[in-house]
């Protein structure tokens, strides 16, 4: 059986990872914008 710590660890990992994803997109957007490489 998956343990309680595994379950909550997975959930916290999922939420943190998703949040970092949003951050990464913003950082990449700014980088592309500065270098005029958006589109």
């Amino acid at each position: 059986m998956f343990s309680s710590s595994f379950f909550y660890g997975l959930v916290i990992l999922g939420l943190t990872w998703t949040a970092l994803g949003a951050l990464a997109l913003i950082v990449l957007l700014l980088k592309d914008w500065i270098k005029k490489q958006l589109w």
Partner: protein
Amino acid sequence: MLAAASITREVGWAIVIVLGLIWIGLGILWGRKAKNSEGFMLAGRNVGLSLGSATAMATWVTSNTMMVAPLLALKMGIWGMLAYASASFGLMLFAPLAARIKSVMPDGFTSGDFFRQRYGAAGWSMFMVITLLYSITWLVTMAIAGGKLLEELGEIPYLQGMSLILVVCVLYTLFGGLYAVIGTDFIQSLIILLGVVAIGVMVLFHLDHGATYEYVETNQPALLDVLMPVALLAFFNNMLFGFGEVFHNNVWWSRAFAMRKGVAPKAFFLSGILWFPIPIAAGFIALAAGPLGINVTDPSKVGPAVANHVLGEYGMGMTGGILILVVLFCSIASSIDSLLAATSDLLVKDVYCGLFKRKLTDDTFRRVAAVAILLVAGIAWLVALPGHNLDTVLFSAGGLVASLIWPIIAGLFWKRCNRALVLIGIIAGVITGYICWFAVQTYVAALAGGAVSMLFTVLSRFIAPSPFPERTSASPNVE
């Protein structure tokens, strides 16, 4: 069951109209960048990493991600969430494919082009039937989902809500082409990611962790099992379904063509990484239903039901409803616009130009594209009218798309094969997939279709193989 009165009808209309006007406004603004058909359909072939990754990720986040991830978590527990997350591997594996696509078809427009080059008219026809069937079904399920959500969350009558969502997406796609689609996708992807985190964090903080785990352990033990049979099957099946969907569909091929050289592989790989945690972050809330005493009557709505309940407990009834509606609207719109654009591209380039041998000029391309977009949207609207749940049609198509995986691999990387055998393999895979869905076992359709087609394609390399035709073709679209 969705705490229906959390948003009033006026607020529901207001949200959709305000968001809709923003997207349409941006569509008109960005659409000015498209000076020719290449600009309209492929955003000038110069899209960078940030916009590229965001659009690939956002398109792959559909309302299914928000509604089906919790459903799978409810039915299959921890492995259910992981099984859904495995679909992201399709995006990651598309990275090397995208690199190869750009190198063999630097001036290519559609995946249909590729199929015609490699597998001739027969292969192309088969491909077109499969992809149009799949894409339109997907589009229709999104339109229906949108209509039903607006009805449940915002008390907007189904027909009006469904039509409104389609009209908004058609308008900004019409005005702005792929520029508008990709630009709005970026904004929508941020809203989706942040919305999922906000809801997830609130649910997580609301739970009594010990009691929640204990409840599930006592009453729903299989959800925590490491060897949960149906979930393990779903893991591989979903992965192959993901491969099939991403590898064949013009939605992703057009993005590969749209991205700047060198960007496509990185963007697709990154989009897979970005997408992976979303089913977990959105899905786990379903496991809170039992412990929170929420009675599940319709598993496909367990996600919004739990979200609504928890946000209501925080005294955020109206705000919570708005948040859920906005996130779901963005995930639906980001898929509808991509499907409209990519499917109409196929009709314009493969059918109008390729089959009917007409030329596109800088003056005529917008009109032709507009007709194609309206045609696709019109068909989707008609099929979505009765509001019958088409999820079965979509999910049973696992074998349909998985059967295209190996033919595409062969066409991109191999020098020779027995094309007839490959095409027979597609048909065999499709049939096997459907038989498995209906008669054998759930969660094996994509697996079966993919395996059968793989077998035929591998054999085609050894049984009377012949070289692929030269890259040049009579089509005005392909290099």
